[in-house]
């Protein structure tokens, strides 16, 4: 008898509540996206794949100082310096092991030339291990760059203290 | 050789071969399955004889409840074909048993031939049936008029079966209640439903 009364109570008092909850959520906008077709816009400071920057005249910013490699906690940056005909240093080889990289962004902060920065892309999966080594030609591609507000601030500060860009 | 005859021959063959498989297969689950096959074929025979309602009830009660219970017990005891069923009994015993069965069969045929062919029951022909022959209404009418006392008595029988099953499958008070006791009760209840419906 107690069971029956409780069951009746549940059917008329508690179950509609549960049904109502799911029905309400049924009409809400889903939080997931139709992923491969629609992608979630990342936040401006999201740290995705690496890019190397050029100056406006097309020369590479990187001078192969090694600060990024020194700052890297996972030790994933390898570089070999060389000099061009003008006597300026540049990186002959600049490689980042994407599998080791933890995407902390320390290289970006350490770089005095603002040559390296981490972009928005995050789809790295591949079936070929070699393709995870980011070489210079992969990183030197043109890319949509959104200026990091903090970077902007730092640049102004550097200007103020006389550390000038080229 | 019209459609009726074909249906009769096929279902009779299925019923008999299912029954034979039932007693000859070693694996109890396969036995149960062939019994179900036989029962379904028998239900077809019922329906061919105009007993629609009883045929449906046969499937619901037997195939739907009783045989499930058999299967449940087999699974509960975890019997497989490998269960040791002892030595083969001696050929003399075996042949005696088969002989007795055959004698019984001969006797049946004799009875059918001699006893019933006198004409009391028109076995040779299928008489024309009334409109509601085998319908639910006519069965119910009989059950609640002429057969009211047997009907009430079966309910008492079912009650005693419930009590019996509970008592039998109940273990000592110290032991906890098990699935078996619960199921035995359930089974007898499920039969009661058929009576009421």
């Amino acid at each position: 008898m107690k069971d029956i009364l409780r069951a009746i109570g549940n059917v008329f008092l508690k179950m509609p509540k549960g049904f109502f909850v799911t029905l309400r959520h049924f009409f809400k906008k889903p939080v997931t996206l139709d992923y491969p077709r629609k992608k979630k816009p990342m936040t401006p400071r999201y740290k995705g794949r690496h890019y190397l920057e050029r100056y406006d005249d097309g020369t590479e910013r990187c001078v192969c100082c090694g600060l990024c490699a020194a700052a890297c906690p996972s030790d994933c940056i390898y570089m070999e310096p060389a000099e061009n005909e003008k006597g300026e240093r540049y990186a002959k080889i600049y490689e980042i092991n994407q599998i080791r990289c933890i995407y902390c962004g320390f290289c970006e902060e350490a770089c005095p030339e603002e040559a390296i920065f981490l972009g928005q892309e995050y789809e790295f999966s591949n079936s070929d291990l070699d393709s995870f080594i980011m070489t210079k030609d992969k990183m030197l591609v043109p890319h949509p760059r959104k200026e990091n507000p903090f970077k902007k601030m730092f640049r102004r500060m550097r200007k103020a203290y006389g550390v000038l860009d080229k | 050789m019209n459609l009726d005859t074909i249906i009769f021959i096929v279902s009779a063959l299925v019923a008999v071969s299912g029954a034979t498989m039932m007693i000859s297969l070693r694996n109890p689950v396969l036995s149960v399955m062939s019994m179900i096959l036989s029962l379904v074929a028998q239900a077809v025979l019922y329906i061919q004889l105009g007993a629609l309602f009883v045929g449906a009830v046969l499937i619901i009660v037997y195939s739907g409840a009783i045989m499930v219970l058999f299967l449940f017990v087999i699974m509960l005891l975890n019997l497989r074909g490998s269960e040791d069923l002892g030595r083969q009994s001696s050929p003399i015993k075996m042949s005696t048993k088969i002989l007795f069965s055959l004698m019984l069969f001969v006797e049946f045929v004799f009875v059918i031939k001699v006893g019933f062919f006198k004409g009391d029951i028109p076995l040779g022909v299928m008489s024309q049936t009334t409109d509601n022959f085998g319908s639910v209404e006519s069965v119910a009418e009989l059950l609640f008029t002429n057969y009211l006392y047997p009907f009430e008595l079966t309910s008492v029988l079912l009650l005693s079966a419930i009590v019996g099953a509970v008592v039998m499958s109940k273990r000592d008070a110290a032991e906890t209640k098990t699935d078996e006791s619960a199921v035995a009760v359930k089974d007898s209840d499920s039969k009661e439903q058929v009576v009421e419906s």
Partner: protein
Amino acid sequence: MLEMIIISSIKVIIVVIAVLTGCAYSTYMERKVVGHMQHRIGPSYAGPFGLLQPLADGVKLIFKEEIIPDNIEKTTYLLAPAISFIPAILTFAVIPFGKDTSFFGFDIPMVLSDLNIGILFVFAVTSLGIYGIVLAGWSSTSKYSMMGAIRSSAQMISYEVGYGLSIIGVILIANTLSLRELIELQMGPLWGTITFLPNWYIFSQPLGFILFLTCAIAETNRSPFDMAEAESELVAGYHTEYSSMKFSMFFIGEYANMIAVSSVGATLFFGGWHGPFLESFPMLSVFYFVAKVIMFMFFYIWLRATFPRFRYDQLMNFGWKVLFPLALLNTMVTAYFVIL
């Protein structure tokens, strides 16, 4: 005679194809609806809105490798999917899915076979479906399958009673077992007096309807009574060891069972194909019927998305201590009013 055979065969083919398509698309519906209830979007990649997803699934299942484990009982293992699949399809033989219409001069009854014991047939056939599950579980010789089979048979024994008793009320009122007559009785205004409501039996048998729904869900092994395949406890229950087309046959069987039970529910309690404007457009009746079945299917899915699975002993208790007495009470009260 020949005409009749041809028409019947065409009807059978159409119904079977419709049921199989319905099964395929109820998987799609289930994934979409449950997805939205969980703030996801469900399948969306194959075709527009993922509408070709069932097709893709079917192709995938057909071409998958068929794995047959070693230590199984071969005969029953191979037989089980068919046994669970065929009774589910057979149920549709007696379900009327539309108002009788005439095409090209032929009067076509929109039911495959109008038995005068239609409901009993449905019950007889659905009660056979359990063997597929039990045999599958038993013959796989896997402990998960075995557990699923034992649970399923015990669940079946305890729910069959309530299932049978819950529709007695309707039968008492209608005084017939033929599904076609049941639908005809549900036409017209409610109890002959209330004109704005149809005379559906859900209004005269609300308790019976709730009991029927509960038992039907248990009968088809659906959540929250899906202990036979409780995926979080028993891997996949009775069909753990099945793969490829055999697995999909279980799947289709389950969904066909759901559709069958939904059709029976729609016929018994919601007036079957009955609806407005049938005089001028008789084909609308099929649409009404399908709409009612879809409502039931939606409820099934809604329930699955809402409630957690029952525990084994809870279910047994519920079946015997709640559903059974309530069904008896319903029968008694209905009988009292019918005699009055």
